[in-house]
Protein backbone atom coordinates (compact mmCIF):
# COMPACT_ATOMS: atom_id res chain seq x y z
CA UNK A 1 0.00 0.00 0.00
CA UNK A 2 1.14 3.53 -0.77
CA UNK A 3 2.37 5.23 2.38
CA UNK A 4 0.89 8.63 3.02
CA UNK A 5 3.39 11.46 2.71
CA UNK A 6 2.88 13.68 5.72
CA UNK A 7 4.15 17.15 6.51
CA UNK A 8 3.83 19.02 9.78
CA UNK A 9 4.00 22.79 9.58
CA UNK A 10 3.79 25.60 12.02
CA UNK A 11 2.74 29.21 11.77
CA UNK A 12 2.69 31.49 14.80
CA UNK A 13 2.16 29.16 17.70
CA UNK A 14 3.69 27.64 20.77
CA UNK A 15 4.38 24.39 18.87
CA UNK A 16 2.68 22.52 21.69
CA UNK A 17 0.62 20.53 19.22
CA UNK A 18 3.78 19.14 17.64
CA UNK A 19 5.13 18.40 21.10
CA UNK A 20 1.87 16.60 21.83
CA UNK A 21 2.50 14.44 18.75
CA UNK A 22 6.09 13.78 19.80
CA UNK A 23 4.76 12.85 23.23
CA UNK A 24 3.08 9.81 21.73
CA UNK A 25 6.55 8.27 22.10
CA UNK A 26 6.48 4.63 20.98
CA UNK A 27 3.03 4.94 19.53
CA UNK A 28 4.47 7.61 17.25
CA UNK A 29 6.94 5.02 16.01
CA UNK A 30 4.00 2.80 15.12
CA UNK A 31 2.39 5.65 13.22
CA UNK A 32 5.68 6.26 11.40
CA UNK A 33 5.59 2.65 10.23
CA UNK A 34 2.48 3.53 8.29
CA UNK A 35 3.15 7.04 7.07
CA UNK A 36 6.18 8.83 5.63
CA UNK A 37 6.91 11.94 7.62
CA UNK A 38 8.65 13.95 4.91
CA UNK A 39 8.57 17.49 6.16
CA UNK A 40 8.82 19.04 9.59
CA UNK A 41 11.09 21.94 10.44
CA UNK A 42 11.26 21.07 14.12
CA UNK A 43 12.55 17.61 13.26
CA UNK A 44 14.88 18.94 10.57
CA UNK A 45 12.93 17.44 7.67
CA UNK A 46 12.69 19.39 4.44
CA UNK A 47 10.67 18.35 1.43
CA UNK A 48 9.18 21.33 -0.48
CA UNK A 49 7.14 19.01 -2.64
CA UNK A 50 3.67 17.56 -2.72
CA UNK A 51 2.34 15.84 0.38
CA UNK A 52 -0.77 13.78 0.97
CA UNK A 53 -1.47 15.23 4.37
CA UNK A 54 -0.41 18.57 5.82
CA UNK A 55 -0.86 19.21 9.51
CA UNK A 56 -0.70 22.91 10.28
CA UNK A 57 -0.51 24.43 13.71
CA UNK A 58 -0.58 28.12 14.52
CA UNK A 59 -2.42 31.13 13.21
CA UNK A 60 -1.69 33.61 10.49
CA UNK A 61 -0.25 36.84 11.89
CA UNK A 62 1.45 38.31 8.86
CA UNK A 63 1.25 38.44 5.09
CA UNK A 64 4.27 36.15 4.94
CA UNK A 65 2.38 33.54 6.90
CA UNK A 66 -0.69 34.00 4.69
CA UNK A 67 1.50 33.26 1.68
CA UNK A 68 3.04 30.32 3.46
CA UNK A 69 -0.28 28.68 4.30
CA UNK A 70 -1.46 29.11 0.72
CA UNK A 71 1.76 27.58 -0.53
CA UNK A 72 1.28 24.58 1.79
CA UNK A 73 -2.35 24.16 0.72
CA UNK A 74 -1.25 24.26 -2.88
CA UNK A 75 0.85 21.17 -2.51
CA UNK A 76 -1.21 19.13 -0.08
CA UNK A 77 -4.10 16.81 -0.77
CA UNK A 78 -5.59 16.95 2.74
CA UNK A 79 -5.00 19.85 5.09
CA UNK A 80 -5.62 19.60 8.79
CA UNK A 81 -5.74 22.49 11.23
CA UNK A 82 -4.09 21.55 14.50
CA UNK A 83 -5.26 23.14 17.66
CA UNK A 84 -7.13 26.24 18.67
CA UNK A 85 -4.60 28.62 17.05
CA UNK A 86 -5.15 27.15 13.60
CA UNK A 87 -8.89 26.70 13.75
CA UNK A 88 -9.94 29.85 15.58
CA UNK A 89 -6.88 32.10 15.79
CA UNK A 90 -6.51 31.19 19.44
CA UNK A 91 -9.75 32.94 20.28
CA UNK A 92 -11.10 30.17 22.43
CA UNK A 93 -7.94 30.11 24.48
CA UNK A 94 -7.51 33.87 24.68
CA UNK A 95 -11.30 34.19 25.19
CA UNK A 96 -11.21 37.02 22.76
CA UNK A 97 -14.23 37.14 20.52
CA UNK A 98 -14.03 40.06 18.21
CA UNK A 99 -12.39 42.80 20.23
CA UNK A 100 -8.77 42.08 19.47
CA UNK A 101 -6.78 44.32 17.22
CA UNK A 102 -4.00 41.81 17.03
CA UNK A 103 -3.84 39.88 13.78
CA UNK A 104 -4.39 36.26 14.62
CA UNK A 105 -6.34 34.73 11.75
CA UNK A 106 -7.55 31.16 11.66
CA UNK A 107 -6.12 29.39 8.65
CA UNK A 108 -9.53 28.74 7.12
CA UNK A 109 -9.67 32.46 6.37
CA UNK A 110 -7.09 31.78 3.67
CA UNK A 111 -7.42 28.17 2.61
CA UNK A 112 -9.84 25.29 2.72
CA UNK A 113 -9.34 23.10 5.73
CA UNK A 114 -10.32 19.45 5.45
CA UNK A 115 -10.32 18.58 9.12
CA UNK A 116 -9.81 20.29 12.44
CA UNK A 117 -8.20 18.78 15.46
CA UNK A 118 -9.37 20.94 18.26
CA UNK A 119 -8.04 21.78 21.64
CA UNK A 120 -5.11 23.57 23.15
CA UNK A 121 -3.15 21.46 22.84
CA UNK A 122 -4.64 18.78 20.59
CA UNK A 123 -5.59 15.54 22.25
CA UNK A 124 -3.09 12.88 21.30
CA UNK A 125 -5.71 10.10 21.26
CA UNK A 126 -7.80 12.13 18.87
CA UNK A 127 -4.72 12.71 16.72
CA UNK A 128 -4.22 8.95 16.58
CA UNK A 129 -7.77 8.28 15.53
CA UNK A 130 -7.54 10.94 12.84
CA UNK A 131 -4.30 9.54 11.48
CA UNK A 132 -5.81 6.06 11.57
CA UNK A 133 -8.81 7.28 9.58
CA UNK A 134 -6.50 8.94 7.05
CA UNK A 135 -4.43 5.80 6.65
CA UNK A 136 -7.58 3.79 6.07
CA UNK A 137 -9.23 6.34 3.81
CA UNK A 138 -12.05 7.02 6.25
CA UNK A 139 -13.64 10.36 6.94
CA UNK A 140 -12.64 11.66 10.33
CA UNK A 141 -15.58 12.59 12.51
CA UNK A 142 -15.25 15.02 15.36
CA UNK A 143 -16.82 14.05 18.64
CA UNK A 144 -20.48 14.95 18.75
CA UNK A 145 -20.46 14.89 22.52
CA UNK A 146 -20.13 17.88 24.77
CA UNK A 147 -17.32 17.98 27.33
CA UNK A 148 -20.08 17.92 29.95
CA UNK A 149 -21.39 14.58 28.74
CA UNK A 150 -17.90 13.09 28.53
CA UNK A 151 -17.34 14.28 32.08
CA UNK A 152 -20.34 12.48 33.48
CA UNK A 153 -19.19 9.29 31.81
CA UNK A 154 -16.11 9.52 34.01
CA UNK A 155 -18.36 10.06 37.02
CA UNK A 156 -16.53 13.23 37.95
CA UNK A 157 -18.04 15.54 40.49
CA UNK A 158 -19.66 18.49 38.74
CA UNK A 159 -17.62 21.66 39.21
CA UNK A 160 -20.56 23.91 38.33
CA UNK A 161 -22.41 22.38 41.23
CA UNK A 162 -19.46 23.28 43.41
CA UNK A 163 -19.73 26.87 42.22
CA UNK A 164 -16.79 26.90 39.81
CA UNK A 165 -16.96 28.14 36.26
CA UNK A 166 -16.81 25.26 33.81
CA UNK A 167 -17.51 25.60 30.08
CA UNK A 168 -18.21 21.87 29.71
CA UNK A 169 -21.88 22.21 28.71
CA UNK A 170 -21.12 24.30 25.62
CA UNK A 171 -17.73 22.94 24.62
CA UNK A 172 -17.18 20.23 22.04
CA UNK A 173 -15.93 17.00 23.51
CA UNK A 174 -13.19 14.70 22.37
CA UNK A 175 -10.79 15.48 25.20
CA UNK A 176 -12.39 13.14 27.72
CA UNK A 177 -13.02 16.05 30.04
CA UNK A 178 -9.34 16.04 30.98
CA UNK A 179 -9.48 19.38 32.80
CA UNK A 180 -12.41 18.46 35.01
CA UNK A 181 -10.81 15.12 35.74
CA UNK A 182 -7.98 17.24 37.10
CA UNK A 183 -10.33 19.29 39.23
CA UNK A 184 -10.31 22.29 36.94
CA UNK A 185 -13.26 23.78 35.10
CA UNK A 186 -13.40 23.31 31.34
CA UNK A 187 -11.46 26.09 29.66
CA UNK A 188 -13.39 25.89 26.40
CA UNK A 189 -10.28 25.40 24.29
CA UNK A 190 -12.06 23.02 21.92
CA UNK A 191 -14.57 25.61 20.80
CA UNK A 192 -18.30 25.28 20.72
CA UNK A 193 -20.15 22.02 20.30
CA UNK A 194 -22.97 21.35 17.84
CA UNK A 195 -26.02 23.50 18.44
CA UNK A 196 -25.01 24.68 21.89
CA UNK A 197 -27.28 26.97 23.88
CA UNK A 198 -25.09 29.77 25.17
CA UNK A 199 -27.87 31.99 26.51
CA UNK A 200 -29.27 29.08 28.51
CA UNK A 201 -25.79 28.40 29.82
CA UNK A 202 -25.45 31.99 30.97
CA UNK A 203 -28.81 31.73 32.74
CA UNK A 204 -27.72 28.53 34.41
CA UNK A 205 -24.51 30.18 35.64
CA UNK A 206 -26.57 33.02 37.07
CA UNK A 207 -28.84 30.63 38.93
CA UNK A 208 -25.81 28.92 40.43
CA UNK A 209 -24.38 32.24 41.55
CA UNK A 210 -21.32 31.88 39.31
CA UNK A 211 -20.14 35.20 37.93
CA UNK A 212 -20.48 35.50 34.17
CA UNK A 213 -17.18 36.16 32.44
CA UNK A 214 -17.53 38.89 29.86
CA UNK A 215 -16.29 36.74 26.98
CA UNK A 216 -19.42 34.60 27.23
CA UNK A 217 -21.45 37.61 26.22
CA UNK A 218 -19.11 38.00 23.28
CA UNK A 219 -19.79 34.38 22.35
CA UNK A 220 -23.51 35.09 22.23
CA UNK A 221 -22.88 37.14 19.12
CA UNK A 222 -21.22 34.08 17.66
CA UNK A 223 -17.48 33.76 17.42
CA UNK A 224 -17.59 33.16 13.70
CA UNK A 225 -14.49 31.06 13.93
CA UNK A 226 -13.70 27.42 14.05
CA UNK A 227 -16.88 26.35 12.33
CA UNK A 228 -16.71 22.65 12.03
CA UNK A 229 -16.60 20.54 8.90
CA UNK A 230 -19.55 18.64 10.34
CA UNK A 231 -21.91 21.51 10.12
Amino acid at each position, binding site marked *: MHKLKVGIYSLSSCEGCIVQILNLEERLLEVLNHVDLVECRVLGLKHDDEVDVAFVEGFVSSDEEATKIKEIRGRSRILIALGDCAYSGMRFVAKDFGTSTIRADPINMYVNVDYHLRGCPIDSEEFLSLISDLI*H*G*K*KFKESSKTVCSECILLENKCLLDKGFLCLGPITRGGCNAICIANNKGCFGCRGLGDDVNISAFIESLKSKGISIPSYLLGLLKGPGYGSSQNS
Partner: protein
Amino acid sequence: MVSMKNPYIPTKAIITHIRNETPDTKTFRIRILDQNEFSFTPGQFIQLSVFGFGEAPFSIAGSTNEKELEITVRRIGTVTGALFRKNVGDIVGVRGPFGKGWPIGLMLRRNILIIAGGLGLAPLRSLVHYIILNREEFGKVYLLYGARTPADLLYKDEFNTWSRYIDLHLTVDKGDNYWKGRVGLVTILLDDVSVDTEDTIALQCGPPIMMHFVSKKLKSLGFPDENIYLSLERLMKCGMGFCGRCTVSGRYVCIEGPVFCYADIKSFIEAIPEAGVEHA
Protein backbone atom coordinates in the same frame (compact mmCIF):
# COMPACT_ATOMS: atom_id res chain seq x y z
CA MET B 1 -27.40 -20.06 30.76
CA VAL B 2 -26.75 -17.89 27.77
CA SER B 3 -26.45 -19.97 24.70
CA MET B 4 -28.31 -17.80 22.25
CA LYS B 5 -26.93 -17.04 18.87
CA ASN B 6 -25.31 -13.63 18.87
CA PRO B 7 -27.38 -11.48 16.52
CA TYR B 8 -24.66 -8.81 16.38
CA ILE B 9 -22.29 -11.14 14.54
CA PRO B 10 -22.52 -10.81 10.79
CA THR B 11 -22.46 -13.81 8.50
CA LYS B 12 -19.58 -13.81 6.11
CA ALA B 13 -20.44 -13.15 2.50
CA ILE B 14 -18.54 -12.78 -0.75
CA ILE B 15 -18.93 -10.15 -3.41
CA THR B 16 -19.70 -12.00 -6.65
CA HIS B 17 -20.44 -9.17 -9.03
CA ILE B 18 -20.15 -5.41 -9.19
CA ARG B 19 -22.03 -3.31 -11.69
CA ASN B 20 -21.64 0.44 -12.22
CA GLU B 21 -25.00 2.14 -12.21
CA THR B 22 -24.16 5.83 -12.24
CA PRO B 23 -20.94 7.75 -11.62
CA ASP B 24 -21.36 7.44 -7.84
CA THR B 25 -23.57 4.36 -7.59
CA LYS B 26 -22.81 0.68 -7.92
CA THR B 27 -24.80 -2.50 -7.50
CA PHE B 28 -23.07 -5.25 -5.58
CA ARG B 29 -24.16 -8.85 -5.79
CA ILE B 30 -23.32 -10.77 -2.66
CA ARG B 31 -23.42 -14.47 -1.84
CA ILE B 32 -23.75 -15.41 1.77
CA LEU B 33 -21.27 -18.13 2.57
CA ASP B 34 -22.51 -21.35 4.13
CA GLN B 35 -26.06 -20.45 3.22
CA ASN B 36 -27.90 -21.79 0.22
CA GLU B 37 -30.55 -19.18 -0.10
CA PHE B 38 -31.47 -15.80 1.06
CA SER B 39 -35.14 -15.09 1.47
CA PHE B 40 -36.61 -11.67 2.05
CA THR B 41 -39.60 -9.51 1.28
CA PRO B 42 -39.12 -6.59 -1.14
CA GLY B 43 -38.57 -3.45 0.92
CA GLN B 44 -36.55 -5.15 3.66
CA PHE B 45 -32.93 -4.20 4.36
CA ILE B 46 -29.70 -5.78 5.46
CA GLN B 47 -26.81 -4.55 7.59
CA LEU B 48 -23.62 -4.83 5.58
CA SER B 49 -20.23 -4.89 7.28
CA VAL B 50 -17.01 -3.83 5.68
CA PHE B 51 -14.64 -5.03 8.35
CA GLY B 52 -12.55 -2.19 9.71
CA PHE B 53 -14.99 0.41 8.49
CA GLY B 54 -18.24 -0.57 10.15
CA GLU B 55 -21.72 -1.52 9.27
CA ALA B 56 -24.48 0.31 7.41
CA PRO B 57 -28.03 -0.49 6.38
CA PHE B 58 -28.90 -1.07 2.71
CA SER B 59 -32.22 -1.85 1.08
CA ILE B 60 -32.22 -5.08 -0.81
CA ALA B 61 -32.48 -4.27 -4.48
CA GLY B 62 -32.33 -7.76 -6.00
CA SER B 63 -34.94 -10.37 -6.79
CA THR B 64 -36.63 -12.61 -4.29
CA ASN B 65 -36.07 -15.68 -6.45
CA GLU B 66 -32.32 -15.41 -6.54
CA LYS B 67 -29.86 -17.08 -4.22
CA GLU B 68 -27.63 -14.07 -4.07
CA LEU B 69 -28.64 -10.69 -2.82
CA GLU B 70 -28.09 -7.34 -4.44
CA ILE B 71 -27.71 -3.90 -2.99
CA THR B 72 -27.31 -0.60 -4.79
CA VAL B 73 -24.95 1.75 -3.03
CA ARG B 74 -24.13 5.41 -3.42
CA ARG B 75 -20.72 6.44 -2.16
CA ILE B 76 -21.33 8.94 0.62
CA GLY B 77 -19.88 7.72 3.89
CA THR B 78 -17.27 5.59 5.54
CA VAL B 79 -18.78 2.17 4.88
CA THR B 80 -19.86 2.97 1.34
CA GLY B 81 -16.46 4.49 0.61
CA ALA B 82 -14.78 1.30 1.77
CA LEU B 83 -17.24 -0.89 -0.11
CA PHE B 84 -16.42 0.97 -3.32
CA ARG B 85 -12.79 -0.07 -2.90
CA LYS B 86 -13.79 -3.74 -2.68
CA ASN B 87 -13.53 -6.14 -5.58
CA VAL B 88 -15.28 -9.29 -6.69
CA GLY B 89 -14.17 -12.09 -4.39
CA ASP B 90 -13.74 -9.89 -1.33
CA ILE B 91 -15.33 -10.79 1.98
CA VAL B 92 -17.96 -8.65 3.64
CA GLY B 93 -20.43 -9.36 6.44
CA VAL B 94 -24.20 -9.48 6.31
CA ARG B 95 -26.89 -9.44 8.95
CA GLY B 96 -30.57 -9.57 8.18
CA PRO B 97 -32.92 -9.25 6.45
CA PHE B 98 -34.50 -6.77 8.80
CA GLY B 99 -37.73 -4.80 8.93
CA LYS B 100 -41.06 -4.99 7.18
CA GLY B 101 -41.21 -4.65 3.41
CA TRP B 102 -43.90 -3.51 1.03
CA PRO B 103 -47.40 -4.78 1.92
CA ILE B 104 -47.55 -7.41 -0.83
CA GLY B 105 -50.55 -9.19 0.69
CA LEU B 106 -52.60 -6.00 0.45
CA MET B 107 -51.39 -5.22 -3.03
CA LEU B 108 -52.62 -8.44 -4.62
CA ARG B 109 -55.23 -7.89 -7.34
CA ARG B 110 -55.05 -4.13 -6.80
CA ASN B 111 -53.58 -1.41 -8.99
CA ILE B 112 -50.14 -0.31 -7.96
CA LEU B 113 -48.63 3.16 -8.24
CA ILE B 114 -44.91 3.19 -7.51
CA ILE B 115 -43.15 6.51 -7.12
CA ALA B 116 -39.41 6.58 -6.71
CA GLY B 117 -36.77 9.28 -6.56
CA GLY B 118 -33.05 8.78 -7.09
CA LEU B 119 -31.59 5.98 -5.04
CA GLY B 120 -35.09 5.36 -3.67
CA LEU B 121 -35.67 3.05 -6.62
CA ALA B 122 -33.40 0.41 -5.07
CA PRO B 123 -35.90 -1.10 -2.57
CA LEU B 124 -38.59 -0.78 -5.22
CA ARG B 125 -36.59 -2.64 -7.83
CA SER B 126 -36.95 -5.88 -5.93
CA LEU B 127 -40.68 -5.17 -5.80
CA VAL B 128 -40.79 -4.50 -9.56
CA HIS B 129 -39.02 -7.81 -10.15
CA TYR B 130 -41.49 -9.52 -7.84
CA ILE B 131 -44.45 -8.00 -9.68
CA ILE B 132 -43.07 -9.00 -13.05
CA LEU B 133 -42.54 -12.56 -11.83
CA ASN B 134 -46.08 -12.65 -10.50
CA ARG B 135 -47.64 -10.27 -13.00
CA GLU B 136 -51.05 -11.84 -13.10
CA GLU B 137 -51.48 -11.30 -9.35
CA PHE B 138 -51.63 -7.50 -9.73
CA GLY B 139 -53.83 -5.00 -11.55
CA LYS B 140 -52.41 -2.01 -13.40
CA VAL B 141 -48.90 -1.14 -12.29
CA TYR B 142 -47.35 2.29 -12.79
CA LEU B 143 -43.77 3.17 -12.00
CA LEU B 144 -42.97 6.87 -11.86
CA TYR B 145 -39.27 7.47 -11.48
CA GLY B 146 -37.30 10.66 -11.25
CA ALA B 147 -33.61 11.38 -10.98
CA ARG B 148 -31.41 14.46 -11.03
CA THR B 149 -30.04 13.91 -14.53
CA PRO B 150 -30.32 11.16 -17.14
CA ALA B 151 -26.94 9.87 -15.98
CA ASP B 152 -28.31 9.40 -12.48
CA LEU B 153 -31.10 7.04 -13.55
CA LEU B 154 -30.55 3.62 -12.01
CA TYR B 155 -31.12 0.27 -13.76
CA LYS B 156 -31.46 1.88 -17.20
CA ASP B 157 -30.82 -1.34 -19.09
CA GLU B 158 -33.76 -2.98 -17.35
CA PHE B 159 -36.26 -0.34 -18.39
CA ASN B 160 -37.13 -2.00 -21.68
CA THR B 161 -37.97 -5.26 -19.97
CA TRP B 162 -39.91 -3.49 -17.26
CA SER B 163 -41.93 -1.53 -19.80
CA ARG B 164 -43.26 -4.75 -21.26
CA TYR B 165 -44.99 -5.52 -17.98
CA ILE B 166 -45.63 -2.22 -16.26
CA ASP B 167 -46.30 1.39 -17.19
CA LEU B 168 -42.97 3.16 -16.74
CA HIS B 169 -42.66 6.95 -16.67
CA LEU B 170 -39.41 8.82 -16.24
CA THR B 171 -38.40 12.37 -15.47
CA VAL B 172 -35.18 14.18 -14.65
CA ASP B 173 -34.55 17.46 -12.86
CA LYS B 174 -32.15 18.53 -15.57
CA GLY B 175 -31.94 16.99 -19.00
CA ASP B 176 -29.04 16.72 -21.43
CA ASN B 177 -28.69 16.84 -25.21
CA TYR B 178 -30.03 13.33 -25.65
CA TRP B 179 -32.86 13.45 -23.16
CA LYS B 180 -36.22 13.51 -24.88
CA GLY B 181 -38.35 12.72 -21.85
CA ARG B 182 -39.95 14.74 -19.12
CA VAL B 183 -38.05 17.34 -17.15
CA GLY B 184 -39.20 18.25 -13.66
CA LEU B 185 -39.88 16.77 -10.28
CA VAL B 186 -41.39 13.32 -10.08
CA THR B 187 -44.74 14.79 -9.01
CA ILE B 188 -45.32 16.03 -12.55
CA LEU B 189 -45.52 12.42 -13.70
CA LEU B 190 -48.63 12.06 -11.60
CA ASP B 191 -50.30 14.33 -14.15
CA ASP B 192 -49.36 11.89 -16.92
CA VAL B 193 -51.20 8.92 -15.51
CA SER B 194 -54.81 8.57 -14.56
CA VAL B 195 -55.06 6.19 -11.68
CA ASP B 196 -58.11 4.94 -9.90
CA THR B 197 -57.52 6.60 -6.56
CA GLU B 198 -60.00 4.30 -4.85
CA ASP B 199 -58.41 1.02 -5.79
CA THR B 200 -54.73 1.80 -6.11
CA ILE B 201 -52.00 1.25 -3.57
CA ALA B 202 -49.36 3.97 -3.80
CA LEU B 203 -45.82 3.13 -2.74
CA GLN B 204 -43.05 5.67 -2.51
CA CYS B 205 -39.41 5.85 -1.67
CA GLY B 206 -37.04 8.74 -2.23
CA PRO B 207 -35.46 11.78 -0.63
CA PRO B 208 -37.52 13.32 2.20
CA ILE B 209 -38.37 16.38 0.19
CA MET B 210 -39.72 14.29 -2.69
CA MET B 211 -41.91 12.15 -0.46
CA HIS B 212 -43.18 15.26 1.23
CA PHE B 213 -44.56 16.63 -2.03
CA VAL B 214 -45.70 13.28 -3.38
CA SER B 215 -47.73 12.61 -0.24
CA LYS B 216 -49.37 15.99 -0.50
CA LYS B 217 -50.16 15.43 -4.16
CA LEU B 218 -51.55 11.95 -3.55
CA LYS B 219 -53.77 13.34 -0.84
CA SER B 220 -55.00 16.08 -3.13
CA LEU B 221 -55.73 13.49 -5.80
CA GLY B 222 -57.97 11.76 -3.29
CA PHE B 223 -55.89 8.76 -2.25
CA PRO B 224 -57.16 7.35 1.07
CA ASP B 225 -54.53 7.36 3.83
CA GLU B 226 -54.67 3.56 4.07
CA ASN B 227 -53.57 3.16 0.47
CA ILE B 228 -50.37 5.18 0.68
CA TYR B 229 -47.15 3.53 1.80
CA LEU B 230 -43.71 4.99 2.14
CA SER B 231 -40.28 3.80 3.11
CA LEU B 232 -38.66 6.02 5.75
CA GLU B 233 -34.96 6.60 5.94
CA ARG B 234 -33.44 6.60 9.41
CA LEU B 235 -30.04 5.68 10.80
CA MET B 236 -30.29 2.05 11.80
CA LYS B 237 -27.31 0.74 13.71
CA CYS B 238 -28.46 -2.55 15.19
CA GLY B 239 -31.46 -3.39 13.02
CA MET B 240 -33.18 -5.11 15.90
CA GLY B 241 -34.88 -2.31 17.81
CA PHE B 242 -32.21 -1.81 20.47
CA CYS B 243 -29.93 1.05 19.56
CA GLY B 244 -32.83 3.50 19.51
CA ARG B 245 -31.46 5.69 16.75
CA CYS B 246 -34.10 5.02 14.10
CA THR B 247 -37.22 5.64 16.15
CA VAL B 248 -39.95 7.93 14.89
CA SER B 249 -42.56 8.74 17.45
CA GLY B 250 -41.27 5.83 19.49
CA ARG B 251 -41.70 3.36 16.63
CA TYR B 252 -38.67 1.44 15.50
CA VAL B 253 -38.18 1.97 11.80
CA CYS B 254 -35.85 -1.02 11.75
CA ILE B 255 -38.49 -3.47 12.95
CA GLU B 256 -41.85 -1.86 12.24
CA GLY B 257 -40.66 -0.19 9.05
CA PRO B 258 -38.94 0.95 6.99
CA VAL B 259 -42.24 0.73 5.08
CA PHE B 260 -45.06 2.49 6.86
CA CYS B 261 -48.65 3.18 5.92
CA TYR B 262 -49.48 6.86 5.66
CA ALA B 263 -52.49 6.32 7.92
CA ASP B 264 -50.15 5.00 10.59
CA ILE B 265 -47.72 7.87 10.19
CA LYS B 266 -50.60 10.30 10.56
CA SER B 267 -51.37 8.84 13.96
CA PHE B 268 -47.80 9.40 15.18
CA ILE B 269 -47.51 12.21 17.69
CA GLU B 270 -44.12 13.22 16.37
CA ALA B 271 -44.31 15.07 13.09
CA ILE B 272 -42.91 13.25 10.05
CA PRO B 273 -42.35 16.11 7.62
CA GLU B 274 -41.09 13.89 4.82
CA ALA B 275 -44.49 12.22 4.75
CA GLY B 276 -46.10 15.63 4.64
CA VAL B 277 -47.37 15.12 8.20
CA GLU B 278 -46.82 18.19 10.34
CA HIS B 279 -48.65 18.46 13.61
CA ALA B 280 -49.57 21.64 15.42
